[in-house]
C-alpha cells in the first residue's frame, strides 16, 4: 500500500481531502503572498488519529504541517509542497475545566477566546489575547508563543502553558509538565512553546487560568506627535505603575479606524490608550497617579472611560485598526518587531524616514508597554515592483529593531517570512544549536519543514550554510 492508501484506511472520506478544490483553502495562511500545494489534508477528530498520521508520515518520509485556523502572519502554517496538512480544527473540545485548580485542559483546535468564555462563569479567564483570539486556536498559539496587548504584565503564551502532550516527529507520545504552576526538572513544556511546530504536534494542552480583574480604568490621551505619546509611556513606567496594557496609534491608523468603526477618536498625530486593572481600591489609587502623569505629559485631550460601554468604545478603534488599514490600501504587510521601550521614539522616527525613502505609507499601531511595534506597510500588489519594495522596507524595519537591541518578532513568529533575517539576530552558533535540536528530534526533517531555520533543508553540511 502507498501513503495515500494507508491514509484512506485511517481517515474516512470527508476527513481526507485530496481534490484540488478541497485543498485550495489550505494552501496558505494569513500571509497570503505565499502559497504551497499540499498532497493531502487530514481532519483528525481524536489525538490517536494525529499520532497515526505522524507515524505514517515518518514511515513514508512525507513532510507534514499541523495547523489550526491558519491565522499565522509569518507563513508559519504554510504547507510543505507535496506534504500532508494535519488540520486540527475538529479537535476543539475543552476536556476539563477545573476552576479550583485554575486550569483548563484543551485540545489543540480550541479557539483562544472560547477558553475565557468557558472560564467566565467561574470568574476566571485565559490571559494571552492575540488580536486573532476570536479565530486562532490554542495549538497555534502554543506553536508561536502568541502574545497580545497584555504581555508586559502577564507574559506570553509560554508562561500560561503548564503541561503538554506532544507527538514527536518520530511518532512518540510524551507528556511534558504537570498540572500545577511549579514543576521539577527541565522546563520542557516551556521550551516546546514557540518552536513553531518544528519539534512535534501538541495533542493536549493544560492552561493556567487567572481570576478576572475586578476593576478596569481605561484612559485615552491625544498627543501632537508620536514622540510625545512615546514619552508619556516612559513617564508612566517611571512613575512605578504597571498598567495591564498601553497601546499607541498614529494618524494614519486613527483615520483608518475612524473610517471603519467611528470610534469617535480625536483626529491627532498620536493616541495613547492606558488600561489599569486590579482590585477596585488599588485601581482607584493608581488612577490618581496616572491622571497626574498624563497631565504632566502634555496630552492635548484626555478621556477616561466612565462605564464598560465607554471602555469598549475606546478599545473598538484599536482592535479594528488592522482590518481598517486594509481600507486605505489594496495590500499591506504587517511586521511585529520589538525594540527596547526607551528606544520607541528613535525607532518610529527611523520608520518614518524609511517610509519617505521608499515612497510607501506605513501605519503604526503598537503595544507600547512592551516595545512591540506593528508597522503596516501599505502597497498595491498590482503595481509592478511595489510588493518587492514593500518587502524590502519591511526588512529594513526588522533590521532596525535588531540594531536597537530588540527582536525580529514579538508574537507572530519567524515562519517563512522572517527566516532569512534570523542571522541578523542570531550568531551562526546559535542557529546551529537550533538546527542540532531539530535534527535530533526530527532526523528526517518532516515537521513543518522549511520554517524558522534559514539553513534547514539545504543539505547535510550545515556549517557551510552558516559560514
Amino acid at each position, binding site marked *: 500500500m502507498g501513503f495515500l492508501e494507508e491514509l484512506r484506511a485511517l481517515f474516512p472520506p470527508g476527513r481526507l481531502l485530496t481534490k484540488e478544490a478541497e485543498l485550495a483553502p489550505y494552501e496558505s495562511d494569513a500571509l497570503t503572498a505565499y502559497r504551497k500545494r499540499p498532497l493531502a489534508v487530514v481532519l483528525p477528530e481524536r489525538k490517536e488519529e494525529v499520532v497515526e498520521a505522524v507515524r505514517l508520515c515518518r514511515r513514508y518520509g512525507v513532510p507534514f504541517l499541523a495547523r489550526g485556523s491558519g491565522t499565522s502572519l509569518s507563513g508559519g502554517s504554510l504547507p510543505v509542497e507535496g506534504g500532508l496538512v494535519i488540520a486540527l480544527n475538529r479537535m476543539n473540545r475543552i476536556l476539563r475545566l477545573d476552576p479550583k485548580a485554575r486550569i483548563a485542559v484543551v485540545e489543540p483546535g480550541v479557539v483562544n477566546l472560547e477558553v475565557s468564555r468557558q472560564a467566565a462563569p467561574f470568574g476566571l479567564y485565559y490571559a494571552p489575547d492575540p488580536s486573532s483570539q476570536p479565530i486562532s486556536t490554542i495549538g497555534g498559539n502554543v506553536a508561536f508563543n502568541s502574545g497580545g496587548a497584555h504581555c508586559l504584565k502577564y507574559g506570553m503564551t509560554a508562561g500560561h502553558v503548564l503541561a503538554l502532550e506532544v507527538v514527536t516527529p518520530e511518532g512518540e507520545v510524551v507528556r511534558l509538565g504537570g498540572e500545577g504552576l511549579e514543576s521539577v526538572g527541565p522546563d520542557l513544556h516551556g521550551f516546546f512553546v514557540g518552536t513553531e511546530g518544528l519539534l512535534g504536534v501538541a495533542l493536549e494542552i493544560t492552561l493556567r487560568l487567572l481570576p478576572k480583574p475586578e476593576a478596569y480604568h481605561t484612559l485615552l490621551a491625544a498627543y501632537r506627535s508620536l514622540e510625545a505619546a512615546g514619552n508619556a509611556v516612559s513617564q508612566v513606567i517611571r512613575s512605578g505603575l504597571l498598567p495591564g496594557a498601553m497601546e499607541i496609534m498614529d494618524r494614519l491608523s486613527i483615520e483608518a479606524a475612524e473610517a471603519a468603526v467611528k470610534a469617535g477618536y480625536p483626529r491627532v498625530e498620536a493616541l495613547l490608550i492606558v488600561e489599569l486593572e486590579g482590585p477596585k481600591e488599588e485601581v482607584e489609587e493608581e488612577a490618581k497617579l496616572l491622571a497626574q502623569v498624563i497631565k504632566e505629559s502634555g496630552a492635548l485631550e484626555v478621556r477616561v472611560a466612565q462605564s464598560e460601554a465607554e471602555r469598549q468604545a475606546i478599545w473598538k478603534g484599536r482592535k479594528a485598526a488592522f482590518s481598517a488599514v486594509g481600507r486605505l490600501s489594496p495590500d499591506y504587510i504587517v511586521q511585529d518587531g520589538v525594540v527596547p521601550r526607551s528606544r520607541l521614539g528613535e525607532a518610529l522616527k527611523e520608520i518614518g524616514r524609511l517610509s519617505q525613502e521608499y515612497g510607501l505609507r506605513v501605519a503604526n499601531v503598537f503595544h507600547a508597554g512592551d516595545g512591540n511595534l506593528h508597522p503596516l506597510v501599505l502597497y498595491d500588489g498590482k503595481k509592478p515592483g511595489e510588493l518587492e519594495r514593500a518587502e524590502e522596507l519591511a526588512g529594513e524595519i526588522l533590521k532596525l529593531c535588531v540594531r536597537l537591541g530588540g527582536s525580529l518578532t514579538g508574537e507572530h513568529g519567524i515562519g517563512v517570512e522572517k527566516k532569512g533575517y534570523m542571522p541578523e539576530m542570531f550568531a551562526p552558533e546559535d542557529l546551529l*544549536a537550533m538546527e542540532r535540536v531539530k535534527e535530533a528530534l526530527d532526523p528526517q526533517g518532516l515537521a513543518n519543514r522549511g520554517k524558522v531555520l534559514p539553513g534547514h533543508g539545504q543539505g547535510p553540511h550545515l556549517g557551510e550554510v552558516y559560514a
Partner: protein
Amino acid sequence: MPEVRANSLEEAQEAVRTYPRLRPKGGGSKPALSTPKDGETLLDLSGLRGILEYAPEEFVFTAYAGTPLKEIEETLRAHGQYLPFHPPLVEQGATLGGTVAAGLSGPMRERFGGLRDFILGVRFVDGEGRVVRGGGKVVKNAAGFPFHRLMVGSLGAFGVMVELSFKVFPSPRATQTLRLTYGSLAEALAAMERLRVLPLDLLALDLIPPATLEIRLGGFPESLGKRLKRLQEILQKEGEVLAEDETHWEGVRNLRFLEEAPIWVKVPSTPAWVPKLENLLLGPRRYLAGGELLYAGMEAKGLASLRQAGIPHLVLKGAEDALFPHPPEAFFRKLKLALDPRSRFPLEKRGGVGEL
C-alpha cells in the same frame, strides 16, 4: 576533589573542553545539586559575577550567572524594583544561575508568576564548548528556539549558563500581612481555595500546617487598609495583622523554617494534593502560592515516603538522588544529545540507574 574555576566566558569554554564531566556550582546554597559525584570535576562559577546591563525603565537586566541574587536585588531596590518570582536562599548566597538551574521561586510568585515567567534570555556554553544564545533582552520576543526556558530547572544538563536576562517589576509601595489560624487543616484549606479564585491580587498566600494562613497584600499605602478589611470580611475572621512584615517574609523566602531539618525538598504541589502530602512523614514545611509550591524539611524516612507515593520532587540539600522522576526520556534524551553529546553535564542516566 578536582575543582576548576571559570571567571569568564572563555574560561567556562576552556573548562568544558578540558574536563569530561563537570558539576557547576554557584553559591553552593543547594548542596544536593552542586556537590560533584564520582568522576565529576567541580566547576566553580562564583567568580563569574556582575550585572552587565540594567535599564530600570526597560524592566530588564542582564547579569553573569554567578552573580549573587543579593547583589542583584540590592541594585534593583535602589531603583524601586524587585524580582517578582521572589527567589529563595538569597541570604545563603544563592546565585542567579543556580536559581535558574534549580528552578526556584518563593512566596511572592503568587502575584505575578514564577521564575519561568520572568526569564528572557540566556547565553550558555554547550557540551562541546560552543557559545549559544537563546531568547533576548526585551520583554516580548518570539524569535528562535527558546533555550532560556530550557535552562529553568535543568540542573545544568544542557550547558553552563554564563549570562541571563530577566524581566523585573516595580516593587509594591507598601505591604501588610494577615495571619489567620483555623481549627483544622480542612478549614484553612477551604479558605485558601476560596481566595485562589478571587481577583484580590495577593502578593503571597501561604498555608502553614496544621491550619494557619498567611496572606500578604501589596500596593498603595492608601488602599491597603481597605483591601485588608475586605479580606477579613470575605473570610469572616479578624486574624492578626502584621503591619511591619518585611523581616518575616525575608525569613520565609530564605527557607529559615527548614533550618533544623537534615533534608530540604521542593515539591510542586496543588491544593488538591495537600491532604495526601500531609499524610506523609514530612517535617517543617510551608505551602506557598496558594498551595502550588511546597518547601519541606524531612529525614530520610520522609524522603522515602515521598518517593514511594510517586510524588515529583527536587532535593536541595541532604540527599544524593536529587530529582524525581527523571525527565520524559523521548523528548529529553534528544535535546541532551543535541546540546551535550558527550554527557559532560548533570542529569545523566549512568549504568542504567538514575543518577542525577
